[in-house]
């Protein structure tokens, strides 16, 4: 049975619901002031040509790897920041600033530590022309709804994470927003607390106990997105864009792990772990299904950087993953892996990326498959691992190869870190350049390719300058 036909059936009311919020051809550049060595002005393109509609009655989830601009998109949609190009309209009116009909729940809760729970919730109402009594009354009602009774006079730091996020929800709901935005609202909570809060939010929402007309949620958790959302927006990076918009599974399939549910989770994994494939092709290829994405899909453009970007992963994790997959005969479903290791996208994606980049494995159809090198790595002992790793790094990692070559060429077999950093800063922001450098050094040190002295910022070949190690 085709998934999409089911979805279409339940999502096709007699008339299409009104569009609440619409973004058209939104682009966002950051850091236009950054200049490269050659003096040309270079901004980092964070969002490229993003168009998205949010309709009444919808729960939309945005998924994607770290740095794909999910938070940026959410902030543009909410009017917190200006897009560089393109427009955002709320009920046909151009959004020029934070809208009174909108509330945001933050990942870090964003509570004011010096205000009590009640005062924090009342804060949401301060901009409205209410008397003090009215304000308090409404705040108390919201506190009641969200299950915070008895904590009115507590300060946030006295509460547990789950309770704090409840305050965040109460503060958002007290303004009776038409649009509720959430940026990874559950990711700072432990698994059970998150589950608990999710269920309660869903109940309030589905039972219509809150006046909210649409919810937009950014998340790293694919299961969570499938469990909650009517529509899933999958984003890709370099530059950030929408790769696919998928319909959610029917309500009945959301909580139970039905095939439709599993299938969608798998599909999202597949799309996200194959950043260079066209999302439409992937979907067509999956089990030969003919379904089409409901929204536009975009073929990712060739990476905007023109330079290989290293995922910031410690070697031990790569080794551990290889060993685990090897125990499953060299092939394992990423969705299962994520669930069992309790890793969300922002943990698992860089890891898979590292495994692929080093040639230890390949992500295919939502599975991770080990290559020959990967199998050898999983089976080898410490010394063999280093040997294999050294080979793979040298043949796959451009940056490390260049550093090694430079060291070989250099007179004392020494170079200053600034030399490498400067070069990296042509492609990355200074912070990211630093992180790239550190990851490369970490990998190279493990592979015993060269050494690095943090205090002096000196890279050197081990045998060339054995005395300067500290």
């Amino acid at each position, binding site marked *: 049975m085709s998934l999409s036909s089911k979805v279409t059936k339940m999502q096709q009311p007699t008339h299409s619901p009104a569009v609440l919020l619409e973004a058209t051809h939104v682009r966002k550049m950051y850091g*236009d002031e950054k200049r490269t060595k050659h003096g040309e002005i270079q901004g980092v393109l964070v969002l490229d040509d993003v168009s998205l509609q949010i309709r009444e009655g919808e729960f939309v989830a945005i998924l994607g790897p770290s740095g794909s601009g999910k938070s940026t998109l959410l*902030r543009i949609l909410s009017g917190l920041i200006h897009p560089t190009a393109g427009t955002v309209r709320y009920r046909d009116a151009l959004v020029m600033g*934070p809208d009174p009909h909108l509330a945001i729940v933050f990942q870090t*809760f964003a509570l004011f530590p010096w*205000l009590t729970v009640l005062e924090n919730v009342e*804060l949401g109402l301060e*901009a409205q022309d209410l008397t003090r009594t009215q304000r308090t009354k409404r705040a108390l009602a919201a506190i009641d709804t969200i299950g915070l009774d008895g904590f009115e006079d507590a*300060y946030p730091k006295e509460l547990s994470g789950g309770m704090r996020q409840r305050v965040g929800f109460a*503060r958002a709901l007290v303004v009776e927003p038409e649009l509720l935005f959430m940026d990874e609202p559950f990711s700072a909570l432990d698994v059970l607390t998150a589950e608990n809060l999710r269920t309660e939010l869903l109940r309030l929402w589905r039972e219509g106990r809150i006046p909210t007309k649409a919810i937009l949620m950014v998340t790293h958790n694919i299961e969570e997105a499938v469990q909650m959302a009517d529509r899933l927006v999958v984003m890709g990076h370099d530059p950030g864009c929408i790769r696919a918009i998928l319909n959610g599974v029917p309500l009945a399939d959301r909580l139970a792990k039905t095939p439709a549910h599993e299938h969608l989770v798998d599909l999202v994994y597949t799309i996200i772990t194959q950043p260079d494939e066209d999302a439409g092709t992937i979907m067509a290829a999956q089990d030969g299904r003919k379904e089409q994405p409901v929204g536009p899909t975009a073929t990712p453009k060739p990476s905007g950087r023109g330079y290989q970007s290293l995922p910031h992963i410690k070697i031990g994790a790569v080794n551990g993953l290889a060993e685990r997959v090897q125990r499953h005969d060299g092939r394992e479903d990423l969705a299962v892996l994520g669930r069992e290791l309790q890793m969300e996208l922002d943990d698992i994606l860089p890891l898979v990326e590292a495994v692929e980049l080093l040639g230890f494995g390949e992500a295919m159809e939502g599975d991770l498959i080990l290559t020959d090198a990967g199998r050898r790595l999983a089976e080898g002992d410490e010394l063999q691992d280093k040997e294999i790793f050294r080979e793979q790094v040298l043949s796959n990692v451009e940056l490390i190869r260049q550093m090694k070559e430079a060291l070989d060429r250099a007179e004392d077999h020494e170079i200053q870190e600034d030399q490498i950093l400067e070069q990296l800063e042509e492609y990355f922001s200074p912070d990211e350049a630093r992180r790239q450098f550190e990851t490369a050094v970490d990998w190279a040190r493990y592979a015993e390719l060269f050494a690095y002295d943090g205090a002096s910022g000196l890279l050197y070949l081990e045998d060339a300058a054995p005395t300067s190690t500290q």
Partner: protein
Amino acid sequence: MAQVYLPERSEAQVRPPRGPIQTRRQNDATPTQGQRPGFADAIVIIALIGAVALLVTAASRWTAEQNPAIHISLQPIYLPLYAGLSLLRMMLAYLLSLAFTLIYGHIAATNRTARRFMVPILDILQSIPILSFLPGVVLALVAIFPHSNIGIEMAAVILIFTSQAWNMTFSYYHSARTLPVELREAAMVYRLSPWRRFIRLEIPFAMIGLVWNSMMSWAGGWFFLMAAEQLQLGNRSFQLPGLGSYLQIAANAGNGGALLLGLFTLVVLIVLLDVVFWRPLVAWSDKFKFESVRSTEAPESPILDLLRRSTIIEWFSLHAAQPGSEWINRQIDRIFHNQSASMPSDESTPAPITYKTVIGWGIGGIIAVLAMIGCLLALHALAQISLLTWGTLGVDGFFTLMRTVLAMTIAVLWTVPVGVKIGMSPTWSRRLQPIVQVVASIPATAFFPVLLIVLFKLPTGVGINIAAIALMLLGTQWYVLFNVIAGAMSIPSDLREAADIYRVSGWRRWRTLILPAIFPYLVTGLITASGGAWNASIVAEVVQYNDKTIATPGLGSAIAQAAANNTPSILLASTLVMAFIVVFINRMVWRRLYQIAERRYTLG
């Protein structure tokens, strides 16, 4: 005199004695209704009566016929009155500093154009010693109020202000610039008006740093109290009734008994202030700490608990303060009605031109014109200064530099071992920190004359030089000590245990563990202390004792004498030289050291 670039780092220093976890807060915050007026209320009433009496006395003095050099009696009976008057001056100056801090700091933090000028100006202002402001302030105010004492009183208040305001402003500016992104966004999403954002977000976030810097500012104010209450301007001399004048007169008269009594009064006053004002304030401000878990050692204050139990205060808060502030907030919101939160101005898109921008540019223009006129006048004055004088000032600068270097070296030599000892031992730091705090806020200038009795037995040149360095040291070593203690306390216990296990001891322990760990703190302390030492040079290099004035060559004495002789051009030149040297050293030495400290030696 106090300079702080990173108040957060120094927070550990303000922590008064720790107690058990505060569990009574909820009860304290909402005292049980219908409590009978009790002990707490009696104290509140007595305090109110005392304050009113002091205000009435002071007001009658201010409005009285002008008497620039009132007679100061050394009779002990007058001491409480003098102490009260000095305290009032300090408070007014502090309120002025606070208002200045909030306005200047807020504008500098939120207005990108203004920031470019305001921050460097602040940097220069804090390098200018109090006496350099003297002629301008005094002459202007006495001219405005020629017949009453109010002009001179205001001049004293403003002079104290110039020793209090700058570090507070820096701290506030720094906090306001580093507001957590998510709180800023929350304030925007919930569309707090600029005013409410200011009082709900900006001020609370800056509170801890502000309280800490306020304590430092008070210490700075006391330090220069004598200079502010006794002014010599050419052939005119001004003298205000107060503790500072009392001490100075006692010293001039060589009256040791009166000197000690005055000193005792000052110490009592400072300890009292610490107990009834700073401790409660610090305990109260603990809720503004930006942390996600409550620290187990929250500062406590019995006085604060007492106040929270007071029925009068509770009634006042419930029926006057809360509705009152609500009303004020509404009115302010109404006035600035059309300025609700909009997108941040730091975005790349140009802000639309509003009446606000026009007014801003208008004010900016006026300030620019005034500044230009000021510069022209200054240039005119400077043109009269001979090359020889410049040369002398340069040499003076070198002498003062040598003195500050020496003072800092001595400070480091004794504070590092002592501070590390205190900081590494929880018992000692708990016991000593509050005491050290009070000792640090007792102005060295006050017991300086006592020191002089001894030093003047030595040959003049030697005595005054030792005295000058001693005063610089006494006034500023505490910042170094505080920071070293905080640094030593911050060494993680696992590192210390590791050092124990691997038997790292002696010099190696210092080199590998202690010195790197305290280095950033030490630099922070030294930045504050060296700035303070330069400012202190104006009172350290010129000394009045037994009706004699003894000076030693130096930039501080050059400024003091230029102010006393009322030679504005020399005053201007010497001030410029000092500001230049201080700013130069800050930029070239301290900033760099600080950056190295941040990069290399930050733990964690």
